[in-house]
C-alpha cells in the first residue's frame, strides 16, 4: 500500500493542469519524485511540490496507491486523467476533467466536480457526493463516442449534456439533470433520480430512466405503454425515431 496525501499550499485562481495526480504516475515513487512531477499553472510550468504539500507513506503499484486530497481543489483540473487503477479520495471540490479517459480504479469526491467529469471514461468508478457541472461522462468535441465504460454516481445534481455521446457505462444522478441528458446516447445507461428536460434526443441505443419529472419531452419518442423497472411503473418510450433509434426512455408515470 502506498498512501499519498496532497494539500494545497495556497488558494489558486488560475487552474492547475494536473493529470500527473494519478495512481499510475505516483506508483513506486518517493515523496521527492512525486513532488518534482510537472504541472502547469497557466503558461507557467511548475511542479506538484511547488503548489501542494505532499506526503507519501509506503510504496506500491498503481493498484496499491491511495491518493488522499484534503482541501479545495476547485482549481485543479484533470485529476486522475487516464488512470488505470488505484484510489483517489478528494475531500473537497474539484475542477474540470476529473477522471477523464480513466479505465480503472476509483475516484471519490466529497464536494462538487466541475464540467467534463468522467469525459471519455472507459472503466472504473467515480463517485461525486456533491454536484457535477456540465458534460458529465460526455465526449470530446467532434468525437462520436463519449463515455464507453465504468460508472459515475452523482449524489447531487448535474447540468446540461450529461452522458452526451455515451457508448457504454453507467451514470447515476440522484438529483436533477439539466437539459439534453443522454443526448446521442449510443449504448450507455443513465438514471436520473430527479427532474430533467429534453432527455434522450438523438439516442440510438442505451437506456435512460427518469424518476422525477420531465419538463419538456422531445417529440421524437414513441410511447410503448408502461413497464415496471425495479418495482416502479414507468412510461416506456423508444426512439429517437428520426434515426430509427433503439433507445429506451423510461419516465415515471
Amino acid at each position, binding site marked *: 500500500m502506498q498512501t499519498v496525501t496532497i494539500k494545497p499550499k495556497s488558494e489558486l*485562481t*488560475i*487552474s492547475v*493542469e494536473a493529470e500527473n495526480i494519478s495512481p499510475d504516475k505516483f506508483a513506486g515513487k518517493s515523496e521527492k519524485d512525486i513532488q518534482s512531477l510537472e504541472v*502547469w*499553472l*497557466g*503558461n*507557467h510550468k511548475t511542479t506538484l511540490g511547488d503548489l501542494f504539500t505532499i506526503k507519501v507513506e509506503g510504496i506500491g503499484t498503481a493498484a496499491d496507491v491511495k491518493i488522499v486530497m484534503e482541501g479545495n481543489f476547485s482549481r485543479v483540473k484533470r485529476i486522475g486523467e487516464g488512470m488505470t487503477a488505484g484510489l483517489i479520495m478528494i475531500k473537497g471540490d474539484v475542477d*474540470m476533467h476529473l477522471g477523464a479517459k480513466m479505465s480503472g480504479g476509483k475516484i471519490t469526491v466529497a464536494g462538487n466536480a466541475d*464540467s*467534463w467529469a468522467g469525459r471519455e471514461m472507459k472503466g472504473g468508478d467515480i463517485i461525486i457526493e456533491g454536484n457535477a457541472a*456540465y*458534460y458529465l461522462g460526455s465526449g*470530446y*468535441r*467532434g468525437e462520436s463516442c463519449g463515455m464507453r465504460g465504468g460508472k459515475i454516481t452523482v449524489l447531487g445534481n448535474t447540468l446540461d449534456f450529461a452522458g452526451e455521446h455515451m457508448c457504454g457505462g453507467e451514470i447515476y444522478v440522484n438529483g436533477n439533470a439539466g*437539459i*439534453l441528458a443522454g*443526448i446521442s446516447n449510443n449504448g450507455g445507461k443513465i438514471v436520473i433520480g430527479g427532474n430533467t428536460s*429534453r432527455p434522450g*434526443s*438523438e439516442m440510438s441505443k442505451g437506456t435512460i430512466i427518469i424518476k422525477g419529472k420531465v419538463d*419538456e*419531452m*422531445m*417529440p*421524437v*419518442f*414513441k*410511447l410503448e405503454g408502461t413497464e415496471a423497472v425495479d418495482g416502479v411503473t414507468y412510461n416506456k418510450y423508444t*426512439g*429517437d*425515431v*428520426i*434515426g*430509427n433509434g433503439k433507445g429506451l426512455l423510461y419516465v415515471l408515470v
Partner: protein
Amino acid sequence: MTTEITDALCPFCGCNCDDITVVVDNNRITGVKHACRVGTAKIMGHHRIETPMMRADKKSEFKKVSYDEAIEGAARMLAMSKRPLLYGWASALCEVHKKGILLAEEMGAIIDNTATVCHGPSTLAVHEKGLPSSTLGQIKNRADVVVFWGSNPVHAHPRHMGRYSVFTKGFFQEKGRRGRKVIVVDVRKTETASMADEFVQVQQGSDYLVISAMRAILSGHADVVPDSAGGVQKEQLVKLVDTLKGAKFCGIFFGMGLTQSISRYKNIDNAISLTTELNSFTKCVIMPMRGHYNVAGFGQVCSWETGFATAVDFARGAPYYNPGETAANDLLMRKETDAAMIIAGDAGAHFPADSVRHLAKIPVVQIDPYWNATTEVSNIVIPVAVCGIEVEGTAYRMDGVSLRYRKMIEPTLSTDVEVLERITERVKELRGV
C-alpha cells in the same frame, strides 16, 4: 482632387458587399454609394482615438503617450501574465489574425474571437454534424425556398436579401422575389418576418423541439409528434416540411436566435441534421449569418494555423481547444484571466457584466480605432488604422469566400499588424525566449 473607387468592399457585416463606390477627396472619404446604412456609417467614419493613451489605475484619466511607450507598456503587461487572453479580431483582416496567433504562441496565451458571443456555437455544431452549405451565388441562382431562422437580415444584414437571397434574380431564378418562397422562423414578428410569405412563430427557447419535430415528420414519424411542438401547431409543421421537401433548392440562414438561446449549439446541430435529411428529397443548404465582415476569417486562419477554429489555449505550447473551458467568457467568469488584450472587438460592450467586471480588475490593453466600452476598462489604449478602409488585406464572407480589401485612403496611424509585430518582438525579449 476627388476620385471614385469602384468595386470597393464594405468592412461591416458578413455580406462583404463588393460593389461599393467610395468617393475620396484629399485622403478623406466624402461619399459612399450602394452601401446600406450600416456600411455607409462605417465607411464614412466616426470619431477616432488619435493617440495612444495610458493610465495607472482604471479610475483615473488617460494620459496621451507615444506609440513606443504604449507598446512597451503593453508588452510588459502581457509578458508578466500567467493566463493572458487575446480577444476580439472580428473587425480586423486575416493578416492581423496571423500576427495575433503568433503572439498567442509566444506568450502561451488564449486567443479567442468574437464568434464566442455570436456563431461560436455554430462551430461546435459543425464538429457534430458538418455543414452542408454553398456559396451565396448558389442561393441567388437556384433557391426557390429561403428560410431565415432566428435571423433578421433587414436589421443585421441589410443587403443580404437584395444581393444574395430573396430579391435578386439568378440563372434558374429569373423572377427574383416572385419566384421564391420566403419563410421566417422566429420568436418575434421581426421586419424580416413581415416581408415573408410565411412566418412560423416559435416559443422562445423552443427551436430545438421544433426542429426535432420537423425531422420526425420528415422521416415519416409524424405519428409520434404531439399536437404542438415548441409553440407551433403540428399542422403548420407538416405544411412547412412539405414546403421544404417540395423545394427545388432550399437555403436556410440562421442567426443568434439559434446560437444564443437554451440548447445553444445543439439547436444548430439539429438544424444541420434537418438540412442533411432534406437532401434525400431536394437540395438544401444551410449557412450561418455571420455578423462582422471578418469574424469568419478568424475561424479560417485559426483553423489552418492551429487546427482549431477559435478559443485556442497555447498555455502548454501546443494548441488546446474546448469552448466552455477555453472561451473568453469561461475564463473571465472564473476570474482566471490575469491580463487581456482586446483588439478589433468590444468585450466591454458585448460581454455580460460579470466578465466586464473582471476585465475592470485586471490589466487590459486595447488596440482599436474607436473609443468604446472596452476603452473604459483599459489601462493602455493603442489606436490603429481602420482595417478594410485604411489597410488592405483579406476577409472571409459568411459563405467562406475570401476577398481582398483594397485601401480606400492612406492611414495616419499605425496598423494592427505593425503594433502586434512590435509587441511580439518585445514580449519575446521580455520572456527571454
